């Protein structure tokens, strides 16, 4: 494979992970526009571990992901009080706080606004990224067929009713938020060790918004939606090179048009229900 194709593939893998990180809290009805913050935490923590403490890559990724996950749980608890747009704004504020943290603190270790250079000398192989993608896809596949998956869906559709039938909504929502943050942290670590350079500006609001758009475009009710959305967002610009500078305008119009045509995304639950991997019994209306 040429290095262009390799870059594209690894980009796709990381974007799929980021889409899943937004999908996970969204599956319980929580919109986070701050996942770039969790990605930054994972990226910086794992890079500090491999560069300054000479730790191996795998434990660094895990520790980076767990750090992001723990902070996700800490943020997730107070976030329980907030819904919809309020939660989106709180997470947006959180993402900006994290970006400013890495801009201004730990600068002897990370280089601050000048960027963190010299994270290893050769990029990690693409199988690292796709190994994690495969792992999380399997995770969500089995999750969606499990009782927890059904509980998440119930929480997404109606919180009060799902609480009444005995679903532990606090545990469910906070852990969904934490798992999402963990995935974003791992994706950040992979990003740092693939591109070997990170700077706080990479993890700005637009990065968070892109992740949300993957999920929304693809369909927010199933994890396949996020995968499809990440695929479209990563690959479509490559096919649109003839549009040159107007690609952004095209994307904007595509988003607006798609929201009008399919407000719940390209893949919906109904589409999955007729297919063979349906987790629901036939004839059961959900």
């Amino acid at each position, binding site marked *: 494979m040429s290095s262009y194709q390799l870059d594209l593939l690894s980009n796709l893998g990381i974007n799929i992970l980021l889409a899943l990180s937004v999908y996970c809290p969204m599956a319980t009805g929580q919109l986070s526009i701050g996942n770039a913050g969790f990605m930054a935490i994972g990226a910086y923590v794992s890079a500090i571990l491999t560069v300054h403490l000479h730790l191996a890559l795998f434990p660094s990724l895990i520790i980076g992901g767990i750090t992001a996950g723990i902070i996700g749980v800490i943020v997730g608890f107070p976030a329980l009080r907030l819904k919809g747009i309020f939660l989106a704004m709180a997470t*947006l*504020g959180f993402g*900006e706080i994290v970006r400013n943290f890495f801009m201004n603190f730990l600068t002897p270790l990370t280089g601050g606004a000048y960027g963190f250079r010299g994270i290893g000398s050769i990029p990690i192989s693409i199988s690292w990224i796709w190994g994690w993608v495969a792992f999380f896809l399997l995770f969500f596949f089995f999750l969606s067929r499990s009782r927890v998956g059904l509980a998440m869906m119930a929480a997404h559709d109606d919180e009060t009713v799902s609480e009444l039938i005995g679903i532990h909504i606090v545990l469910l929502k906070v852990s969904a938020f934490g798992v999402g943050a963990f995935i974003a942290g791992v994706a950040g670590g992979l990003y740092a060790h693939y591109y070997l350079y990170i700077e706080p500006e990479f993890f700005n609001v637009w990065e968070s918004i892109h992740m949300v758009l993957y999920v929304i475009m693809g369909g927010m009710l199933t994890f396949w939606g996020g995968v499809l959305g990440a695929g479209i967002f990563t690959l479509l610009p490559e096919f649109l090179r003839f549009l040159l500078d107007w690609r952004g*305008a095209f994307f*904007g119009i595509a988003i*607006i048009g798609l929201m*009008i045509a399919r*407000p719940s995304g390209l893949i919906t639950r109904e589409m999955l229900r007729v297919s063979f991997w349906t987790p629901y019994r036939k004839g059961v209306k959900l």
Partner: protein
Amino acid sequence: MFIQQLINGIMLGSTYSLIAIAFTLLMGILNMLNFAIGEVFMLGAIFGLTFIHLGLSFHLALPLAMICTGASCLVIERFSFRPLRNAPPLVPLLSTIGFSILFQNITVNLWGSERSQFPPWMEPINISVGPVLFSLTQGVILALSILLMIALDLFIQRTRIGRGMRAVAESLETASILGVDFNRIILMTFFVSGSLAGAAGILFGLSFSIVSPFMGMEPGIKGIAAMIVGGMGNVRGAIVGGMFIGIIEVLSVGYLGSAARDFAVYGLLFLALLLRPQGILGVIQPEKERI
């Protein structure tokens, strides 16, 4: 020193207030977060500068640019609000993100991505009141923003359309049963919101002499923060919230260094959401008076 900082904070805060009002009008009346307001703000500055380059005086450029940005918000209404009125509330929000990207891209392509500046507007006269020093331009900008806010408040409280807006804010169904032409009210709300954001853009461009296609993001987010801190859907709350954010920003830079600036602002947003989601004016203003 402190009073000087306070004045600077109010200058900056008046811009945030205008943006926050633009957000809060749509939020309070139509329950919609228009994420593209930041870019409409940017368009205001770009239109204003273009008109001035075309040889118009500032007195003409400001209202013209406000009309243009108001019209751009009507386009947003047509594609991001009207077809999505029955969709879940987050769908219009995401659709306006599409407009953000679109407006920014169009501006970069037609205008260029470099920073530019407004030509000096007035004689560089400095006015000193006791220990406080500010330029004539700053003073006029502040006066203009306050004038716009007062005009808006009167518009909402005293005029027929304003009454319609308040009725739609209560309940769209009831208002339409009572004979309020809600389509007109909605269009008017979008127009006013857009023109205020545009005015904020010109005034910001004048006082900080930065105009670029990327100038909208940060003030936009701070406008949202101001709206939330002041109390969502409440015009007076948005004014207070904007001033508050502006003062906090200037004071934190002045006393704690520039690194503290965004921590203070976004930390405040985060805390406000957790401790007081109804905002500063949330209690004084009863639930019924949404705007």
